[in-house]
């Protein structure tokens, strides 16, 4: 079974989403289940209803599976804290600008919140590097990332 490595906050969010979906399912079934047959034909309302419920059930199943197979990311040992790994908050210099983000599991990623997927080109390229390294991302224009800081304080 695949393991998911999430931050504490990431796990909390996932639990919240699970509850939202459960609530949506509850709302869907609240109005009662439509009759399966309408005279001798399958009732289209029932078909539409059962499609929706199946969809929600598969989402709930997927989330439950993730929740059961998640491990919280732990801080690496002191000597490894200058190396970029899951959960690292990285400060990089890019063409005179400074950017800061955390490298996380794809499940938790959301660049608008400063969380970059470990499987994105930037995340992949930075993993394993340390302060002082230069990493080039090139599709299709070369962009140099100069690693200035690596922190694990928010874990």
């Amino acid at each position, binding site marked *: 079974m695949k393991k998911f490595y999430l931050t504490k906050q990431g796990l909390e969010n996932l639990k919240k989403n699970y509850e939202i979906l459960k609530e949506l399912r509850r709302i869907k079934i609240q109005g009662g289940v439509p009759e399966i047959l309408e005279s001798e034909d399958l009732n289209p309302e029932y078909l539409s209803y059962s499609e929706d419920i199946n969809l929600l059930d598969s989402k709930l199943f997927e989330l439950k599976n993730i929740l059961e197979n998640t491990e919280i990311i732990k801080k690496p040992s002191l000597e490894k804290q200058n190396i970029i790994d899951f959960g690292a908050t990285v400060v990089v210099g890019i063409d005179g*600008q*400074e950017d800061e983000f955390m490298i996380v599991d*794809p499940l938790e990623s959301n660049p608008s919140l400063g969380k970059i997927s470990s499987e994105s080109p930037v995340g992949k390229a930075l993993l394993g590097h340390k302060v002082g390294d230069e990493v080039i991302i090139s599709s299709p224009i070369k962009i140099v990332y100069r690693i200035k800081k690596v922190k694990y304080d928010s874990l």
Partner: protein
Amino acid sequence: MKNVLEFLLNAGKLKEIPRTGFVWLGIKNPETIAQHIFRVVFLNWVLGTRVTPKINLEHVIKISLVHDLCEVYAGDMTPYWGLLPKDEKKKIEMLKRWVRLPKEVKERRDKIKFKKEEKSLQRLIKDLPFKIRKEIESYWLEYERMISREGRFSKQGDKVETLLQALEYWGDSPDSPVIGWWEEVEDLVDQPVLREFLKKIEKRFYHKGNVNGELDFFLELGKMKARPQKEWKDQKLRRYETVAERSFLTALLTWVLGEKAGLKMGSAIKMVFVYNVYEEIFSKKGNFDFVLDSNFKDETINLWDQVKKLSSFEGKFIKEAHWLIGYLQALQYFKENPNFPILDWFKEGKGIITILDLLELKNEMEEKFLPTKKRKILGIN
């Protein structure tokens, strides 16, 4: 039914709101938000078919359809909001590159944006039936917070579509702002199918290489963003409703009223997009060279057929909904210009709508835009 009409009129405002980033960067008559949504739906649907393990495409299509609805009232809040200098030159320079900020600032800005957009979405959908409202909210949240595989895929596809549009505007010119969009997707896009598609985009635009016809299909769809619906071709109008925009609003109508009517929503919304677009692209060209995946080709031709031949309830519903959204646009044109030939539409509408909920909506539209006084002047009843 008034609630549905108000919803459609308000959501329809996205047909008139241009995408801010392209306006700032000097594109004349850039795409509207509705036009962008149109191709995001197609791109996420077509590429979504190849994702493994499978993702739910109905879910993806609905997420794509609602992802920017919040912009009706919140406007198009780009990542640059509140950051741009007044000096025009400096502003353009900043817009050419991706926004780089401390993590804590990103979180703070996202919170403000999220609240504004959430409020805007709730205002837009507040009078819709409870179940649909909850569904729209939850889909939007999945996109916004990237909280499901479908939500993550849809958001990534959304940004890939914007990059493609930027390349269509600027091409590979080295000093163009396209680099900013590349930087964004390098941070965001980790989905292998989308990564592979980005390689094709790169090959086509930067190395002038041949890629398979799928990209041609999306580029052809891009033309539908600005192509006027054929009903308007003989009219002089302030702005023309386009093929993309008709599809966008018809899909929303189908969703909102179709559930109650018992439509199989998965195929019904797909049918909306296929019908309008295939009528435009393939009725004239008569070939399917663009669409290489045979399953997709077979599925979509079948959906197109169901509308043309009215061979399923969904097909019949879509044909009527498509006409009704056209009529709504005609009534709005008439409101702006009393010389608009609304009489033809009114007469045509007498026998065209047979589905009860759509008929009720049509009556509501006529009550709003053609009250008794106006009908008397026009000599209609």
